[in-house]
């Protein structure tokens, strides 16, 4: 039904299409319009950052793309098919490590792999070892979750999300709880992995510099109701250094725009 639309920037076919998605939540006090008629097309292999103040619905949008939350209206297409529920083609990495404490690091990475019946036992082990190595934790494969530092936990979570070979990686402020040094290191890692694997990544953040450092495009959202305000193309070549001066121009432009959405929200 849809002609596979292509992205103007990369010329790649669309991987994810968000079409007129709206979502409301009723809390005990108020009706929150988390998302209001949001549309967005994400190309195959693109790195898109969703940014906005809290309450702009960026995490809700990520949940809807993941299939964890159903939209009230509108729909999400992944590879031209309507998303009805979660699927292992679109894996999520959460802000707090959602690692399972009853499994060690290796067991956590194996969890998603064991749900792929097309792999043999030996293949699963090889893949898990490969991804633990990719995030630099092969020495910690038998470590319990609580023995890992915050950064190591998120690395294991990254390995766990990558191991079943999803086409789309959905990241919900994955580095927000980490210290700055660990974070800088993970920016390099995630860019390296993205360049090598060319997975489609949707990355939710409230940190402008982080968004500019990572994304091909930065999607700015505004709250109440949650809408897309502006989409910025970041033309700088990857890998980018978070501390580089090259990021300053785009960062200040987007930061100014972000302030604007905040003022509007306050005015309302």
């Amino acid at each position, binding site marked *: 039904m849809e002609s596979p639309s292509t992205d103007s920037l990369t010329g790649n076919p669309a991987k994810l299409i968000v079409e007129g998605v709206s979502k409301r939540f009723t809390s005990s006090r108020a009706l929150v319009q988390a998302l209001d008629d949001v549309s967005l097309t994400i190309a195959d292999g693109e790195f898109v950052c969703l940014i906005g103040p809290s309450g702009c619905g960026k995490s809700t949008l990520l949940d809807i793309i993941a299939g964890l939350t159903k939209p009230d209206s509108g729909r999400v297409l992944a590879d031209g098919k309507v998303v009805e529920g979660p699927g*292992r083609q679109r894996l999520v990495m959460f802000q707090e490590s959602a690692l399972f404490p009853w499994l060690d690091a290796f067991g956590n990475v194996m969890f998603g792999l064991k749900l792929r019946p097309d792999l043999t036992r030996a293949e699963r082990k090889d893949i898990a070892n490969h991804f633990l190595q990719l995030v630099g934790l092969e020495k910690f494969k038998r470590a319990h979750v609580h023995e890992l530092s915050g950064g190591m936990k998120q690395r294991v979570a990254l390995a766990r999300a990558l191991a079943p070979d999803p086409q789309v990686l959905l990241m919900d402020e994955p580095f927000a709880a980490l210290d700055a040094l660990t974070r800088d290191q993970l920016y390099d890692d995630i860019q390296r992995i993205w360049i090598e694997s060319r997975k489609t990544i949707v990355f939710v953040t409230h940190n402008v510099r982080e968004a500019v450092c990572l994304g091909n495009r930065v999607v700015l959202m505004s709250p109440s109701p949650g809408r897309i305000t502006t989409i910025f193309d970041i033309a700088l070549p990857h890998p980018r250094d978070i501390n580089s001066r090259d990021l300053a121009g785009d960062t200040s432009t987007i930061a100014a725009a972000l302030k604007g959405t905040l003022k509007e929200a306050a005015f309302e």
Partner: protein
Amino acid sequence: MKRTAVALLFFAFLIGAWELAVRSGRWSVVLLPSPIFVAEYIWGALLDGTLLESTWVTLKRLLIGYAAGVIIGLPLGLLTSTTQILEDTIGSLALGFQTLPSVCWVPLALVWFGQTEGAMLFVVIMGTVWSVILATDHGARNIPPIYARAARTMGSEGLHKWTRVILPASLPFLVSGMKQGWAFAWRSLMAAEIYVTILTGFGLGHLLHYGRELNAMEQVIGIMIVIVVIGLLVDRLLFSPWERFLHRRWGTNVKAA
């Protein structure tokens, strides 16, 4: 080593104080026998086999009743944690009955089952099952929802989600629930054995009861000590390894580890 020594010293002190109290002559030796008397009774009962036989009878009842309580309680607890209707019905029923001391089941058990093993089991199961339901329900409710969300995105649904995510995630609560269930089962059985006199098996509770009838306080106190020791042993052998395992895995209670 040092901790064991301190504990041993403490118990030696207690027994010494007891012996001194007996020797002071303030209380009749019929009411308060010397620890040596009690030890002699335990030794004698061990040698003539009554103690081992009664312990075996009691433990058999306990294990059967406890196992039944857990087998009924675990799935019910998991179910009440997921369904609002079951929470409002079975959940409140469990909450109500858990407050009922298990001795209160004895009259009913006697009328319904007579002086039989069935009455014993009934009391033990009724004493166990409600606390297991409540603990399991509480545990499954306290699983961070993010585990289930993460599992869902990786394609874990239905039975796989229950056996590989919900059950292991609630393991710490399950173990404390089963431990609590054990304590309740043990109490219920003693109540049942003291009040239900039957001929099919002579348990520790019966020895306690007849000790009183015969005014043999060394038997009463001796059996009480045996009951305490069995309780401690079960805790150490059955539950401590599990708890240590969980603490290691979850990184909780680091001080004790």
